[in-house]
């Protein structure tokens, strides 16, 4: 007689609590300007997200969106470590990474609003943010594929000897899809300069990752299956992320092949704009809100001797940026109807017959 494992009722599962902040990370050898840059990035992502949420509540946002409030440190830590010509591959939850790579807020916001001045002219929307000139090589909305695509960019780097690295970000839930497995094995066998970053925020859409995964650490516990080192990093601490990222990027650039990093973090909101996130135990949400990466980092910078006013200035500047971007987006016209038939092909057309 075979038996079934216990099934958790909706929201009734055991809370997964964050570990304590590792204050010794303040001593990591990170240049202060880089730290300030990461602080700014995190604020940019947070304040932009908040505005996007507000605009959604005002009925201005087109379609869905998936925010990253709570997960900013991962995007900031990696972007600060990457070379400008490195490549980012993100998911539908890609606003953070797009901003962190330096793409302007205005075009992103306009894209969310479905405007002609959007980053993609309104054709891609929130889930597909891309800016090739910034090395932001796309946001992919179907789970798994982009890990394989990142390998392709890494292959170009390898063939051409440019030293560029491809970094693919994805969620915990994504570790259970076939493409994850194929991408990791392929990267190792071809010794590709790909860095795979799992942002483990403990949930798929609404289902706790522990209910869907055979191992406690969905990425780290799979590393050995690809001949890789198991690496877990505090995804709510930009310093920890930066150091792990620098290591992995350097290894990839030096011909040392791929890495797989699991960053433990939490999303403050629901999965997407339609989701209040009520399936999560209150205690868990509370504990992670207290472990918010931004106030923690604020404290660290103060402790490192940065003046409160300098941090306040960053917030003010960022808020102004967000305001400007909002104006830019709201002022945008709707996309021209003819754009529907454009850009299927490289000649700009969608012509399939003569």
């Amino acid at each position, binding site marked *: 007689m075979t038996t*079934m494992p216990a*099934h*958790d*009722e*909706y*929201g009734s599962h055991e809370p997964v609590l964050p570990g304590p902040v590792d204050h010794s990370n303040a001593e990591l050898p990170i240049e202060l300007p880089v730290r300030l840059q990461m602080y700014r990035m995190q604020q940019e992502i947070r304040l932009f997200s908040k505005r996007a949420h507000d605009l959604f509540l005002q009925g201005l946002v*087109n*379609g*869905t969106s998936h925010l990253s409030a709570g997960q900013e440190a991962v995007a900031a830590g990696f972007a600060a470590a990457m070379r400008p010509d490195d490549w980012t591959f993100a998911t539908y939850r890609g606003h953070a990474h797009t901003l962190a790579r330096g793409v302007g807020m205005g075009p992103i916001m306009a894209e969310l609003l*479905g*405007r002609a001045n*959007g980053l*993609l002219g*309104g*054709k*891609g*929307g*929130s*889930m*597909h943010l891309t800016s090739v000139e910034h090395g932001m090589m796309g946001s*992919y*909305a*179907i*789970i*798994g594929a982009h890990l394989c695509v990142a390998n392709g960019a890494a292959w170009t780097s390898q063939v051409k000897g440019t030293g560029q690295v491809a970094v693919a970000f994805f969620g915990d*839930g*994504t570790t*259970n*899809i*076939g*493409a994850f497995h194929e991408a990791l094995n392929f990267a190792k066998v071809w010794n590709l300069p790909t860095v795979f970053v799992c942002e483990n925020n403990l949930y*798929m*859409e*609404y*289902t706790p990752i522990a*209910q*869907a*995964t055979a191992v406690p650490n969905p990425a780290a516990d799979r590393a050995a299956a690809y001949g890789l080192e198991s690496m877990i990093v505090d995804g709510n601490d930009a310093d920890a992320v930066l150091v792990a990222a620098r290591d992995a990027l350097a290894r990839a650039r030096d011909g040392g092949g791929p890495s797989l990093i699991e960053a433990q973090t939490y999303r403050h909101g629901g999965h997407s704009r339609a989701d209040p996130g009520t*399936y999560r135990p209150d205690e868990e949400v509370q504990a992670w809100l207290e472990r918010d990466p931004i106030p923690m980092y604020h404290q660290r910078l103060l402790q490192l001797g940065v003046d409160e006013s300098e941090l306040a200035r960053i917030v003010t500047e960022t808020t102004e940026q967000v305001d400007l971007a909002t104006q830019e987006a709201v002022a945008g016209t*709707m*996309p021209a*109807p003819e*754009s*529907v*038939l454009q850009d*299927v092909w490289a000649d700009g057309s*969608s012509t*399939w017959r003569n």
Partner: protein
Amino acid sequence: MAELTYRSAVAAAIAQEMENDPDVVFLGEDVAGAGGVFKTTGGLLSQFGPVRVRDTPISEQAILGAAMGAAMTGLRPIAEIMFSDFLAVCWDIVANEIAKSRYMTAGQMSFPLVVRTANGGGSRFGAQHSQSVENWAMAVPGLKVVAPSTAADVIGLLAAAVRDPDPVVFFEHKSCYPMKFELPDTPGDLVGRLGEARVVREGGDVTIVALALMVHRALDAAEQLAAEGIDAEVIDVRSLVPLDTRTILASVAKTSRLFTVEENPRLCGWGAEIASIVAEEAFWDLDGPIGRITTPHVPLPAAGTLEDITIPSVERVVTTIREAVQA
């Protein structure tokens, strides 16, 4: 007469079938604890328990593989693939395994299973979450393919699909979920039949064949055309496989003109199939060219203003038919 949304009809149908047959089981991502990302399957877990209603990892091949293996050994699984676009990540299981295994084994195995999936545009989700891919399934021998346009058909046809001994891919239209419909007051289970189209409006001048969301647009278009003196017959195909060619051919015999209204991209859709059948078998009935009204052959754009002009609109249906009839 009870009123029901298309959305609520889904859980009602599944519940009806799970009560009717203890072998019916249901699996998918976020379907049990969370009640489905489209809120179509709420309440099933508490009603039928975690043995029969079960959440899965994000592993579409594993989901449909499990459905297939369960079907061949005595269960009648209903599997949800959250968005029909994701059929692409498990297409091998659908097109190469589920569809062909009965034939390859000379009938040794049966696959009484249903793959339910949310299809179609209108939600501004962009090109990877808005496709109408019923034609992918129709092109593969061994799959039955259904796409209801009303709540009553969601129940009746889903019930029929669950009771059918063959695999059925069941396309629910995302833009229909919030729509309200009246249900017939039938005692007992509501069970439809696969392979029967429905004439939803009788008319003598032109035949319009439509599916799912497009049925509602075709009906609206027919009203406008009627005001202009063009009396359209509107047929809801409902089931692409089996296909009720008889109803379509009979209508064309009466009206002598055929128009199809398809949401899928232009090339190789079910509209082309129906147009070709009519061009072969009812050629002498036709008084003019066959018109296909489709989404242009492009991926779907995300912006609402763009999406709205891409998918066939009531206005486009009206204009196309008016111009064709007046030509």
